[in-house]
């Protein structure tokens, strides 16, 4: 075993030596970290597609230097994300790392970034609030938005346009849905709306019958933040109980898989409102072009780029644009490059994106409503665009932080 180990070390040393000899001309190494294994492989692969699209747009070159992509995989757990980041940074010696995919991974990678001040970390699609609000890292940038931002303006739309005043919440019991609920409730409560009860169901719950039975009857609508298969389970059980209050959905709830799922829930889903960083059916030419490029590049891709592809694309685009601005200069602890990132006004398929002083995105958010396409299918139609949503949802940072991070009980407005 030792002989094997040593020979591999020797090989690694050789490779490293060879790299150092040609230091001046060597390409910039870009690490791509996503979940390429396990049940989250589908979003992870779409994230990598996002990186590829950005690289393709720049011809795999930025600031006059070639960009080499090295990918690594996690299984959506923070441990595996740190392991994969370590491999990319310490073994493959990437200059810039794009990733990871999910919220708790993002927090772990941000902490890891602190130990490696010479590498710049740019987010993939992770959307936890704390990553950039709680003890942020100087070298971690996020050009995508967080969970609370995704729901900005949804509460206002629900209250004013839809006339919902009393709402109950059903969501999975962990940090990401907490922040979605916070994004929704911030507006909704301020206007006078009431969230009468919140049902946080433990992760991994499949049988929602009892939760359904507990939902009060005297509500105007139900806010649901469950992902993928859980959403399908919940919806079919909700309907079987004979209930049909209108739905307000978290960004992850009404995705393509739910809209396309086989089942008897189609009629019920129509009229559901939701909000998020992208809208599949937006008719803006830039977005349409992005979608078309995606479809051309990937035969095995999803029907339309997911928000994971979009987030990885936007973040990689920021990296490449900033590299162009500084002519590929990564010297001096990547200082010039980071300044360029900080001051970027990034043109993306979903509008202009910049980052705040915590290096978190300020971006547009789309409010959509599910409508029937007339052929038996369903799609999300854009009903409103909320411009320039920042991480503190318009509040000053200290006031926002004083309210505390989203949790089971925060915020509340019974």
């Amino acid at each position, binding site marked *: 075993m030792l002989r094997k180990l*040593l020979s591999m*070390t020797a090989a*690694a040393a050789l490779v490293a030596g060879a790299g150092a000899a040609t230091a001046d001309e060597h390409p910039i190494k870009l690490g791509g970290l996503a979940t390429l*294994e396990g049940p989250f492989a589908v979003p992870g692969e779409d994230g990598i597609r996002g990186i590829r699209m950005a690289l393709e747009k720049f011809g795999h070159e930025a600031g006059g230097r070639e960009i080499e992509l090295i990918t690594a995989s996690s299984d959506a*757990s*923070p441990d595996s994300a740190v392991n994969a980041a*370590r491999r990319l940074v*310490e073994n493959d010696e990437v200059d810039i790392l794009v990733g990871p995919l999910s919220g708790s991974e993002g927090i772990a990678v941000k902490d890891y970034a602190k130990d490696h001040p010479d590498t710049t970390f740019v987010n993939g699609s992770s959307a936890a609030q704390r990553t950039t609000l709680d*003890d942020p890292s100087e070298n971690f940038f996020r050009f995508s938005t967080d969970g609370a931002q995704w729901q900005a303006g949804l509460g206002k739309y629900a209250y004013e346009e839809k006339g919902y005043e009393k709402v109950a919440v059903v969501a999975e019991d962990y940090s990401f849905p907490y922040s979605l609920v916070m994004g929704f409730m911030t507006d909704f409560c301020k206007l006078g709306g009431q969230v009468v009860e919140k049902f946080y169901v433990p992760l991994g719950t499949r049988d929602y019958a009892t939760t359904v039975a507990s939902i009060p009857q005297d509500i105007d609508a139900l806010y649901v933040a469950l992902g993928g298969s859980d959403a399908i389970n919940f919806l079919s059980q909700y309907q079987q109980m004979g209930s049909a209050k209108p739905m307000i959905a978290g960004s992850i709830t009404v995705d393509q898989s739910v809209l396309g799922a086989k089942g008897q829930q189609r009629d019920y889903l129509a009229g559901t409102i939701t909000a998020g960083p992208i809208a599949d059916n937006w008719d803006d030419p830039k977005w349409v072009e992005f979608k078309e490029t995606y479809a051309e590049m990937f035969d095995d891709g999803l029907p339309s780029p997911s928000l994971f592809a979009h987030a990885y694309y936007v973040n990689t685009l920021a990296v490449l644009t900033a590299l162009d601005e500084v002519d590929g200069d990564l010297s001096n602890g990547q200082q010039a490059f980071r300044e360029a990132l900080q001051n970027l006004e990034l043109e993306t398929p979903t509008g202009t994106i910049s980052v705040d002083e915590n290096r978190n995105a300020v971006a547009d958010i789309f409010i959509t409503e599910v409508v029937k396409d007339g052929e038996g299918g369903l799609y999300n139609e854009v009903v409103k665009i909320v411009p320039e949503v920042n991480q503190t949802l318009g509040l000053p940072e200290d006031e926002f932080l004083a309210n505390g991070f989203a949790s089971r009980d925060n915020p509340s407005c019974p």
Partner: protein
Amino acid sequence: MASITDKTEDKKAAPVLPVWLRGVRWYHAVVAVLLVIYPLIATGFWTVQIGAQSLILGLIGLSLMLLAGYGGMVSLSQLTVAGLAGYLVAIFGNAEWPAWLMLVGAVSLATVAAVLIGWISARTSGIYTIMITLAISVAFYYLVLQNDPIFNSFNGFSGVRPPEVFGVDWRAPLPFFYLTLGVVGLCYLFVLYLSRTPFGLALQAVRDNPRRMASLGFNVTAHRVAAHGVAGVLAGIGGVLLVWQNGQISPGSVGIGPVIDILILTVLGGLAHPVGPFIGAVIFILMENFAIDLIDRERFNTVIGAVFLVIVLFSPDGVLGLWGKLKSWLARQSARNRVDQW
């Protein structure tokens, strides 16, 4: 097992050396020296991610080997015990306890938990033990996932660092590797020693024939529970090192995946000798890190499952068993060739 190592005892050296040193061979020294110089020639990544991590997972595997190899109890809760110690270090660290108290507290509470698990499962045997410890592991996973005030639910704890003792930054690759190597080395020698003490021998006898041991007046349950306690100490230490290495701990760190991983790497290496889990850990970690270069990473689980299946089907004693077969084959060859240099 004891009978195997006893065979190799060197009769000439025996009188001067204490019992537990008698099995020492020249290649043991070579391995020790190589382990010590390894981080000096390897990169930081190879030192920590491959080297230290193999040692740590090997240590947790060693605690399983102690239970399964010597005690005949295959416990799936060893990673859970380790995870509890890791969580406690994070929690006590946040409460800013002094370093020594933090470590003693974490490892001893984890040991108490291990004894409790042992007490529940020792009354059962064989397959029941596996199922009960698996269920306990999953229960612990759900507990930390749901509990906010103590375990910080889904997020767990991040930014966990080893305390600065003697002015050394134990997080840096070299100090961390030597810390791990020293601690794991001591634990390894301890298990070797333990296997030849009266307790260790009685434990192995309980494994082979509990009924006879009971009729000889040995308290079978007490031996099993005590073994869980000792294994708990080892796993607890492993858990502390693991949380320092990862810098964070969350429910995913103690989920069903890592729990099964410990079983896989221990069986992969072999349950017959304490070195087995370490061999298994090295193979497992190399595969985990570099399988992506050889095959599609997406099918990593198929590969690891297939390797595991092949080992279990054809060499129940793991890689050690293969080595044993190879050695006896070589011995036969050399005997046939009458080579005397051996």
